[in-house]
């Protein structure tokens, strides 16, 4: 009966071929994702004055160079300060808005929702340009807003805040609101209940969204390019500008340091998460 044997034979042949194809595809994807990361890591330990393969000598020369350069460490400090500021602004505004959406009836809810989420879908070039031309000459009390770190923090919050808002809305939805009722019944006022009952319950969500905000701001450089000057430029901006002139292993060092900052944050989330899990199991 050929009708039966044909699919049977096809079945015994196809899985082998598919498995080989699948494994080689996986290897390809792993290599694709790993290449830029591994190159940055290895090049940062190069001893050479320029980018060249094969790498002939290894040293920490460019790390010394990075930390001795006032311009580069200054940019790193700017990046961290701006990222911390963005985290505070985006997290507090996002959490409060998400709480309002979860707990109160709001007229035109969908419209407000769209408005808050909209900046997340806008290209960085457009957001940066808009803020730059609208606040280009703005001066408050002799303090020029344009070029200040604060303006960059708020511009970065345009991306970070919708993300926090989205995450926290999902987190608040998982809360057991009977606990809140209990707190109100025991005379807890709304603000105190929020900080003493709600916040501890959603702490994992808060920590994760805060770190997302931090990472977004730390890595962003298109908006920052439009909004910073020489004194406030962030590390990615400085990397971009020096890539345009000439690439040296110093850029690889800067990449590694940026990535280390991000992974340090991730480790923090993990530790926090493990601690919470341990608390629950106790």
């Amino acid at each position, binding site marked *: 009966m050929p009708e039966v044997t044909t699919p049977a034979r096809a079945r015994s042949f196809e899985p082998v071929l598919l498995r080989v194809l699948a494994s080689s595809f996986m290897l390809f994807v792993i290599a694709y994702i790993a290449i830029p990361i591994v190159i*940055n890591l290895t090049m940062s330990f190069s001893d050479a004055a320029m980018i060249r*393969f094969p790498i002939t000598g290894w040293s920490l020369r460019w790390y010394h160079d990075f930390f001795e350069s006032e311009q580069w460490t200054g940019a790193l400090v700017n990046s961290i300060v701006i990222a911390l500021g963005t985290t505070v602004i985006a997290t507090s505004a996002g959490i409060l808005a998400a709480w*309002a959406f979860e707990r*109160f009836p709001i007229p035109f809810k969908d419209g407000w929702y769209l*408005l808050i989420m909209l900046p997340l879908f806008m290209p960085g070039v*457009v957001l940066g340009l808009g803020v730059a031309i609208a606040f280009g000459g703005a001066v408050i009390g002799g303090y020029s807003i344009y070029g200040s770190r604060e303006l960059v923090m708020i*511009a970065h919050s345009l991306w970070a805040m919708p993300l926090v808002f989205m995450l926290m809305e999902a987190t608040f939805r998982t809360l057991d609101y009977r606990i809140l009722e209990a707190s109100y019944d025991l005379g807890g006022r709304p603000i105190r209940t929020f900080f003493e009952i709600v916040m501890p319950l959603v702490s994992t969500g808060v920590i994760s969204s805060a770190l997302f905000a931090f990472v977004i701001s730390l890595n962003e450089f298109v908006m920052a390019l439009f909004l910073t000057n020489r004194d406030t430029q962030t590390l990615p901006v400085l990397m971009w500008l020096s890539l345009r002139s000439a690439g040296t292993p110093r850029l690889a060092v800067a990449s590694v340091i940026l990535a280390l900052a991000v992974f340090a944050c991730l480790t923090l989330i993990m530790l926090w998460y493990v601690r919470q899990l341990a608390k629950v199991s106790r």
Partner: protein
Amino acid sequence: MPRARFAPWLLLAPALVIVLVFFGIPTLYMARMSFNLHIDQRLYVPGFTVEHYLNLFSNPLFTNAIWTTVQLSLLASFFTVLLGYSFALLVWLQPTRWRLAFIGLALCPLLISEISIIFGWWMFFPRNGLLSYALVSSGLITNKISLMYTEFAAFVGLVYLTLPYSFFILLSIFDGIDKHLLEASADLAAPPLTTFREVLLPLTRTGILVAFAQSFIWVMGTYATPSALGPDTLWTMGYLIQEQMLGKHNWPMAAAFSMVLVIGVACVMILTRSLMSKRTAFHA
């Protein structure tokens, strides 16, 4: 109770201030700016003209940029979805112990700054880069080659940046599918490719659409990767906005360009939504 009426607005205030003052006002300002005059090297001169929009759609420099951007976005999104789909499918089929490792791997491009990634590829493609070195030392080619500043390099960089989004969108879609469907299909004697075509593809169509739209929007708005890795002639819209703003100091032109970009992005979003709702309506 007035208290309950004011409370939500008080809570929403910081978010709304940020969005309205730093997104709403700049957008309106940009819309107005795009009609201002640009006379002899001054940033802008208040006035009203549609010259910049006309220029945008008649000057071959700008129409080419729009066309290049759309083309590049379509092509990059296509390959992103293709790669992302296969990757997500294979991860979904893997035993769970590998799953976390692959998810971690896919997170890497998201966590690393775009500039670091650009620089990584910047060291990979040129004459003295890793690719050329690896090919020469393995004996595949005899002379050093450079793929730097080609459309291929720009393309590799762009797909790299959008791949994780596609992957995570599609993986979440796959996770919603009951794996028993595959067994059922196999029991009914369907070979794997038939199962894929008849069972998996229809179930993941919405995910493909969302992933495609997402990477299309992303690539439309980006400018750093194509301008750093691609040839000098690869002028995308993002690059021209930056060039008009910081290089040529022509603010009205940059604003007009941005408005076109924003409207393009909005159109893609609306189109995706309408395609999605049509599909769900069909199923219901």
